[in-house]
């Protein structure tokens, strides 16, 4: 891909599905604002806000999630608050899937593709450090950051397994998150060059893995259990077309997060007409909330 366009030509195929396409394209070269989540396992929200204020650090809570903060700080990872586990540096939209999963105290939850554990630890905190979250991560190299984040954040309800998610053997679980490996187009603002490396061919390759992960998750869920499928990419091949593969075994529920601007899923793509149910998925674009990009679907197993 030529350097002049920065690879943005690869976004052209989304022109018809993204509202205000030119703004979508233009924002890709702007760096992502810093953000973090307050870790209520270790500190109360007011106490954390008081600390930041005392230090003169600028932050502002998200409109849609009071524990998410926009941070105007260079190298937030070096903040003492981060080292002590009072906050976790996490992209704004990465906080969406756990809220859509909505784990309840007393439940058993599976995070099928867990590392580095931003969502795992958010789920843990939503469950008040009780009951059990199984965090699965097949790659040994990626277990270390997952475990380090859990320990830094004071997490005591997460057990780590290392199965291939496609054949994770045993359930049932009340809720399952499948934050699938993807082409990560929505991370362009954090890691420039991601979009220039994406293609429909690569997305179709990933789709095979994603479908098998989601099918296994649906299998592992209790009847009536919740399965959330998410990616940080725009390609419908990796999103709606993956969800479409399990609609015989689960139904989609609409996602409501007041204060966060989202778009419905797509129900036609590449000349193919898909189920209208897919409109219940949610797409989040960077120019609508000044964030990265994300796709989320909430499924209820039949």
């Amino acid at each position, binding site marked *: 891909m030529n350097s002049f366009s920065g690879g943005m030509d690869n976004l052209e195929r989304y022109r018809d599905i993204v509202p205000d396409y030119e703004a979508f394209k233009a924002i890709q070269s702007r760096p992502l604002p810093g953000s973090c989540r307050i870790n209520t396992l*270790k500190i109360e929200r007011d106490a954390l806000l008081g600390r930041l204020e005392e230090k003169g650090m600028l932050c502002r809570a998200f409109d849609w999630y009071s524990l998410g903060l926009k941070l105007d700080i260079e*190298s*937030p*990872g*070096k903040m*003492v608050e*981060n*080292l*002590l*586990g009072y906050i976790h*540096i996490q992209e704004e939209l990465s906080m969406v899937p756990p809220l859509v999963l909505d784990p309840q105290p007393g439940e*058993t939850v599976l995070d099928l593709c867990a590392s580095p554990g931003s969502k795992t630890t958010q789920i843990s905190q939503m469950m008040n*450090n*009780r*009951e*059990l979250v*199984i965090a699965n*991560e097949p790659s040994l190299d990626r*277990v270390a950051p997952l*475990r*380090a984040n*859990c*320990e*830094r954040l*004071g*997490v*005591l*309800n*997460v*057990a*780590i*397994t*290392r*199965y291939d998610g496609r054949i994770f*053997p*045993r359930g049932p679980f009340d809720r399952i998150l499948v934050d699938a490996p993807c082409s990560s187009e929505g991370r362009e603002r954090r890691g420039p060059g991601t979009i220039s490396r994406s293609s429909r061919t690569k997305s179709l390759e990933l789709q095979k893995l994603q479908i098998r992960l989601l099918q296994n998750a649906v299998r592992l869920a209790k009847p009536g259990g919740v399965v959330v499928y998410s990616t940080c990419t725009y390609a419908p091949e990796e999103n709606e077309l993956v969800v479409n593969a399990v609609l015989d075994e689960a139904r989609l529920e609409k996602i409501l997060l007041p204060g966060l601007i989202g778009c419905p899923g797509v129900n036609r793509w590449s000349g193919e007409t898909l189920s209208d149910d897919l409109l219940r998925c949610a797409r989040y674009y960077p120019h609508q909330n000044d964030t990265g990009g994300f796709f989320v679907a909430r499924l209820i197993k039949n």
Partner: protein
Amino acid sequence: MSPGSSRTRTRNVFEPLSASEVAQPWQSRFGIPEDVFSGYQFFRKAKSIWAISDAPLPRLSFESLGMRIMNIKDRPWKPTTCALQVFGKHATRNLVHLDEEQARLFLEGGTQVIGPDMKLDLAPEPASDSASYQAFDLASDQASDPVSGPMPGYVVVFYRGEVLGCGLYSHGKLISQIPKERRAGEQPGR
């Protein structure tokens, strides 16, 4: 059998431990009440002791179970910084309170001389508690030195009432035990 028994062959499986067995060294060294450890289950694997919520565990092969709370590779066993950040606030003895500059040095992983102004609470363990005596202090294999004063061992390090982590107090010095990847000033930004 004590969890740190050196005769036990190291096996790479999670072996359950009783809460009281795990709580004992924390109680004797830091005065942390045993009931702080209720609501968790404990395991020993390789050279660590792990704590996880007491929910039933499904039949799976686990890579880790909750948090590593003690390193039992060497005597004395060492409490982990992450465990002290959770349980250390209940400590009533063997605490060190640092001022801002000392706290900064501690978080960077530094060693510092305990000054006369440093707020120390290095109470000795109850003499009768000999069984767990070895757990977190070094007194059993070092002669008590009247010059250096308090008995050496691991301490809970505080700043402004918050636990920073684990320190090793020895011969008048406080040696930070903050893991390398969590030290201030050395983090790659994420």
